[in-house]
């Protein structure tokens, strides 16, 4: 049936999670992991690429432990990493509300929310560590919301029935990132972290099969530099910008993980992307990015559309009994707080069926009228003030008076480089943390779990597992003149020179927009075989066209933002193809991956556990090679997810 251009390779498996009871695995791993004598750590260099929650927390912690850390980010300051934009909150199984929460429940919710496509060991560890993250952040001075008694406040997020989400107004990511950034700053001041801002990793240096460094470009001078080390940690975030329009920051990119993939790191589940249900609808062709309205709004906002198609009355003219609160109707027990994939698809279905509101009918209402009446405006202002302001600034509508209009948008990528329990990729010495790896969220991430994962990886997991790697290996010096180093540097230089020399007629953005639209149409909220095949024909053509007719002005030896973009888009054009292949091969629906051919009578995702209870793990090659990691569920029994 499937005639996709790919090979099938041998299965892969995680060999690092100890074979003991689920609850004891992390403890056991920490015990078996080799330690490195503190006095010796100074002599080991570790490169950390990225300063988001994952990277900043890892860099600070590794430096505290005594390693010599070399850290990079492409922004002008590590404090601006895209984690800063996270709004709603961070989960932790503290059970402060005594509402029945526990490590096990957080574990269970996450495996179920991910539609049974994640690894039990990893998710359990994440749930276990979650409580320490809150302790750590509070100790750093992160100003979480508090109640009058001075204790921490929590709220609910989608897909769960307990209140375990800690938050700092609508700026949780900012506050957590500042905590990690400040911890990193302390280490920079102490001379243990060598920080390179405005520096972009171009490629990975692999010597004798192990990750031994990177080459990077100084974005101000254009100089290409080489950094060698004993281990490399990628914390470079997600690749949602492959769709051009997404809630990610403009600079978010896939280049670091894609280059590493080309150097031997396997890529897992590339087609697992998350579409967030509540974003501000696009307003025109000039649109450069989409803005999220936090999921936390679904705590108090009610989602509805008019009961008749094409109803153009203003929302306040539509009486209660002529409104369809479709989520509350379809999913009475979770209501507006169903998981993201379900809420997004439901919104799309309403709009596709002609019930949508606003320009082009591409929107549904998120209405705070009832909440304002019940709790009063000040309470709503205190909870969501900055989000309401942001909405008003962008749309020129006042959400205290008029319901918000929202529509789904690309938001997060569950796929990423494959890692084992130690968060090590298939290239020894290359660790991948945060959104850049595939590890914990299966086919759908629950709200407020990415911040948790990034910080768990960075503060707690990778500092332990890197010790084991460094402690178990010996490292010969890799001189700058080493042929592999030289060759990698020449490759990077040549690629940039090639981009600059094309001198075509089309801008980088025009290619990026075209690619994004193609993916959104065929590999977005719902996918089908013929659409995927069509896109698979189109992407290589677009890529060829790019390398033939893109125009990158300026020179390499200067600040050149078009060159930066071109370099990233060139990688997106390759990654897109792998996403399509992955989506085509996975002939089932699960979480955010919705294949139209595979749905229940009620239109819900229909998994095929007999054939697809695995991680799709791709090796780079002329034709991609599919290795599978079988998933086993000993503690949570896969069922048809039900939120009704």
């Amino acid at each position, binding site marked *: 049936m499937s005639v996709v251009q790919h090979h099938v390779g041998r299965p892969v498996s995680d060999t690092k999670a100890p074979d003991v009871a689920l609850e004891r695995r992390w403890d056991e791993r920490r015990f078996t992991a080799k330690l490195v004598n503190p006095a010796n750590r100074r002599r080991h260099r570790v490169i950390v690429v990225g300063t988001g929650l994952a990277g900043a927390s890892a860099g600070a912690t590794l430096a*505290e432990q005594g390693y010599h850390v070399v850290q990079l980010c492409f922004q002008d300051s590590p404090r601006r990493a895209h984690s800063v934009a996270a709004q709603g909150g961070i989960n932790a199984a503290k059970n402060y509300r005594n509402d029945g929460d526990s490590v096990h429940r957080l574990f269970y919710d996450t495996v179920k929310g991910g539609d049974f496509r994640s690894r039990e060991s990893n998710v359990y560890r994440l749930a276990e560590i979650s409580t320490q993250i809150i302790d750590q952040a509070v100790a750093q001075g992160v100003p979480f919301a508090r109640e009058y008694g*001075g204790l921490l406040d929590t709220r609910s997020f989608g897909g769960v029935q307990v209140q375990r989400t800690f938050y700092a107004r609508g700026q949780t990511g900012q506050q957590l990132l500042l905590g990690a950034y400040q911890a990193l700053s302390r280490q920079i001041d102490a001379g243990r972290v060598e920080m390179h801002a405005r520096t972009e990793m171009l490629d990975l240096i692999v010597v004798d099969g192990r990750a031994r460094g990177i080459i990077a470009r100084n974005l101000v001078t254009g100089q290409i530099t080489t950094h060698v080390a004993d281990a490399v940690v990628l914390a470079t975030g997600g690749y949602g910008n492959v769709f051009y329009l997404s809630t990610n920051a403009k600079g978010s990119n896939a280049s670091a993980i894609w280059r590493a993939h080309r150097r031997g790191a396997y890529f897992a589940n590339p087609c697992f992307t998350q579409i967030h249900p509540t974003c501000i609808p696009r307003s025109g062709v000039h649109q450069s990015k989409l803005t999220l309205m936090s999921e936390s709004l679904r705590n108090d906002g009610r989602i509805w559309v008019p009961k008749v198609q094409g109803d153009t009355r203003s929302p306040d003219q539509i009486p209660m009994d002529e409104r369809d609160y479709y989520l509350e109707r379809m999913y009475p027990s979770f209501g507006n707080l169903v998981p993201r994939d379900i809420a997004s698809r439901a919104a799309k279905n309403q709009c596709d069926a002609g019930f949508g509101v606003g320009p082009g009918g591409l929107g549904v209402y998120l209405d705070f009228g009832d909440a304002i009446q019940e709790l009063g405006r000040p309470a709503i202002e205190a909870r969501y003030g900055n989000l309401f302001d942001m909405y008003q600034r962008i749309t020129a509508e006042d959400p205290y008076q008029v319901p918000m209009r929202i529509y789904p948008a690309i938001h997060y990528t569950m796929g990423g480089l494959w890692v084992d329990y130690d968060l090590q990729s298939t290239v020894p010495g290359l660790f991948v943390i945060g959104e850049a790896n595939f590890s914990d969220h299966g086919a759908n991430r629950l709200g407020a779990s990415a911040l948790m994962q990034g910080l768990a990886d960075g503060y707690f997991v990778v500092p332990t597992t890197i010790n084991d790697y460094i402690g178990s290996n010996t490292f010969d010096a890799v001189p700058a003149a080493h042929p592999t180093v030289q060759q990698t540097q020449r490759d990077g230089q040549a690629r940039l020179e090639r981009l600059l020399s094309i001198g075509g007629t089309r801008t980088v953005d025009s290619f990026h927009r075209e690619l994004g639209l193609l993916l959104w149409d065929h590999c977005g909220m719902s996918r089908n075989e013929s659409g995927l095949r069509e896109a698979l024909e189109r992407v290589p053509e677009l890529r060829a066209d790019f390398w033939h007719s893109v125009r990158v002005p300026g020179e390499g030896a200067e600040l050149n933002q078009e060159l930066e973009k071109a370099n990233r888009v060139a990688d997106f054009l390759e990654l897109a193809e792998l996403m399509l292949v992955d989506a085509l091969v996975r002939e089932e629906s699960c979480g955010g991956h919705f294949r139209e051919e595979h749905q229940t009578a009620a239109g819900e995702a229909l998994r095929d556990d007999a054939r697809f209870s695995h991680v799709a793990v791709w090796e780079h090659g002329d034709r991609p090679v599919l290795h599978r990691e079988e998933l086993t569920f000993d503690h949570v029994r896969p069922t048809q997810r039900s939120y009704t």
Partner: protein
Amino acid sequence: MKLTVRIWRQSGSGDRGRMVSYAVQDIRPEMSFLEMLDVLNQDLITNGEDPVAFDHDCREGICGACGVVINGRAHGPEQTTTCQLHMRAFRDGDVIDVEPWRATGFPVVKDLVVDRSALDRIVQAGGYITAPTGSAPEAHAIPVPKHDAELAFDNATCIGCGACVAACPNGSAMLFTSAKVTHLNVLPQGRPEREQRVLDMVAAMDDEGFGGCTNTGECVKSCPKELPFASIARLNREFLRASR
């Protein structure tokens, strides 16, 4: 809308720089200011010219990367970030001047891009709480009165954009520094390093070439996050207290 934008062009730190005038067309009110610059840049590239360099990333007012002086005001006519300023704030036919932040502490890198790394160095000098990973007590061990938590939060919302410095006639970084000092010093967790923090951060601020504060209050008028002016007074008190 059709507009004329006059933009500061400077190829690098060695170049003296100058204003260059451009006509931009098809600008719609719902575009953001940066999307207007995108439109201009796409035209420039297609016409074989060098696009205008400007910093930006999140485009939703939180990363602090963007920031230019628009018609003489840091971040422009509304009290928000440049990326959250929308073109409905302008009229058809307007002439708009766009310049980089101007301050001794922020050398120009290229066009509208400046070097704000001095702000990072102020934080490195003491804008943190020493809390090594793994050593944290249980989060509920120290209750923080809601009022203190809110005050800390109000000050912690600073995005490090540097508009306060750009707006200040003295090029002072007092609002930025006072916000960080206040955030950390009002929390019980920040108390042990309270004195050293303020002394070190103020010293770093002076070393970076930022001017002194003469209470003109321009900073708070341009601050997109509405950081409180009172924090500057608080910084002064903390400094005096620590110097005694």
